[in-house]
């Protein structure tokens, strides 16, 4: 397990730190009121139905932004070293795909070859 290096911040924190740089640059067209400075929550002012949809889209966007810096667990460099079965120095080549395709085409050509008229 190799946690990714770097700061781990929540989406909300990210918005605070990235204010004016990231997502908050693209403010909704409807009027919103931000609570508590950098807080990501906002209140709708009018048009509930429209705002629900808008809120959902906005949340998805904020989520994506949060994912850019979230702490993730990855699996780089944790594999087993499989010792003892390395390549022979003079390996036998694998059957070539090109050869197989070529022989397939040749076979088809033979199948479709017209018989000579008697």
């Amino acid at each position, binding site marked *: *397990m190799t946690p*990714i290096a770097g700061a781990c911040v*929540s*989406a*909300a924190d990210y918005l605070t730190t990235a204010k004016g740089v990231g997502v908050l640059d693209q403010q909704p067209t409807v009027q919103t009121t931000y609570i508590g400075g950098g807080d*990501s*929550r906002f209140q709708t002012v009018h048009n509930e139905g429209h705002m629900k949809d808008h809120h959902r889209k906005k*949340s*998805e966007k*904020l*989520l*994506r*932004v*949060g*994912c*850019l810096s*979230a*702490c*993730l*667990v*990855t*699996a*780089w*460099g*944790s*594999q*087993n*070293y*499989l*010792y*003892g*079965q*390395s*390549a*022979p*120095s*003079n*390996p*036998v*080549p*694998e*059957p070539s795909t090109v050869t197989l395709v070529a022989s397939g085409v040749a076979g088809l050509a033979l199948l479709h070859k017209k018989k000579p008229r008697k």
Partner: protein
Amino acid sequence: MLSVCFIARNEEHNLARALESVVAVADEVIVTDTGSTDGTEKVASAFGARVCRFPWCDDFSAARNFTLNQARSRWILWLDSDEELLPSSQEELARSLKSDDALAFSVIIQNLVGADRLSPYTEMRQVRLFHLDPDLRFGGRCHPQFFPPLQETAQRKGLSVVTSTITLRHFGYAPALRRSKLERGCHLLEMELRDRPGQFYYLVEYGRTLLALGNDQQGRDVLAEAASQLIPVLREPTPFSTMIAPLLETLLAMPEDQMPPGITTSILLDLSERWFPKAAPLLWLKAKRQFDNGAFEEAETLLRQLLEMGRNRTYDRAMSFDPAIMGDDALLNLGACLLRQGKVDQAERCFTRLLNSDARRSEARANLDTIDGLRRDLSN
């Protein structure tokens, strides 16, 4: 028609499985014991094998060549004690023995990472079925190879080396055995290079083994000697040895300031792409570099390529590696790449699929929890 040959020492726990897989197809089975103190001989005799004794002299090739001298059939099938012939290969094996123009056959070896038959594995090729012929003998204290090279002998005799789908299953990577195998190999490789210095194949093996045992400085020095043989051939269109691939793999995993003189990351990446485009471990390391550099889209492409190679089995079979890099580990990292690009739904699908994985379930769960945490933060 067929002699199946083994060398064994203290292999009573493995040998029965191996012998059981070949008794039906062999005209004779020879087990050369190199000094067992357990029931190896008893197990071999119980399966009707002829047991020969050869005092261990730190040389696998010497023990193998001794065994070949005891054989009496036209064909030899070589197995290690921790391998078995798949039942589905018996028919092809019988057909192959009737070939008039083949000197030898390469077979597929499934390298299982665990001790049971359901473990994940990767496949590689080796020549294990060949004529009993005084011109075909092994060399090298560790990881024996044909000396002179098999292709040369085949050409000289006007015969061919044929690619078969005969398959052996190899159980040798059970974690408990790994350390002792490494230590034994290290000792033999050191002796081999003392006897015949400068052999590229064994330099790479030795350097990698030292690194795996934690002997970093000596490992890097040995690999630097191997890498010095690469410098004059960097512009060649094809590699002079497939062992270059594991060398590139090991060097690519090093920090730039520890790389041998004259070798840089860009040289290694260039050679990987030109000489070994289908080597999964090299693609994996390339993906890691892209990921570390924040090039998530490029890393995503490479990880998808690895997953496809695993699905279609289109990877290079010249070296063994952990199948996880084309399976669960690739999927976990792909999820991370997608998430870093803001592709939350796709990432979630990757992690959700891994909830069925024994190896990466907890990591996938942790990442799904992280996504849930982000969602909670936003809804509060």
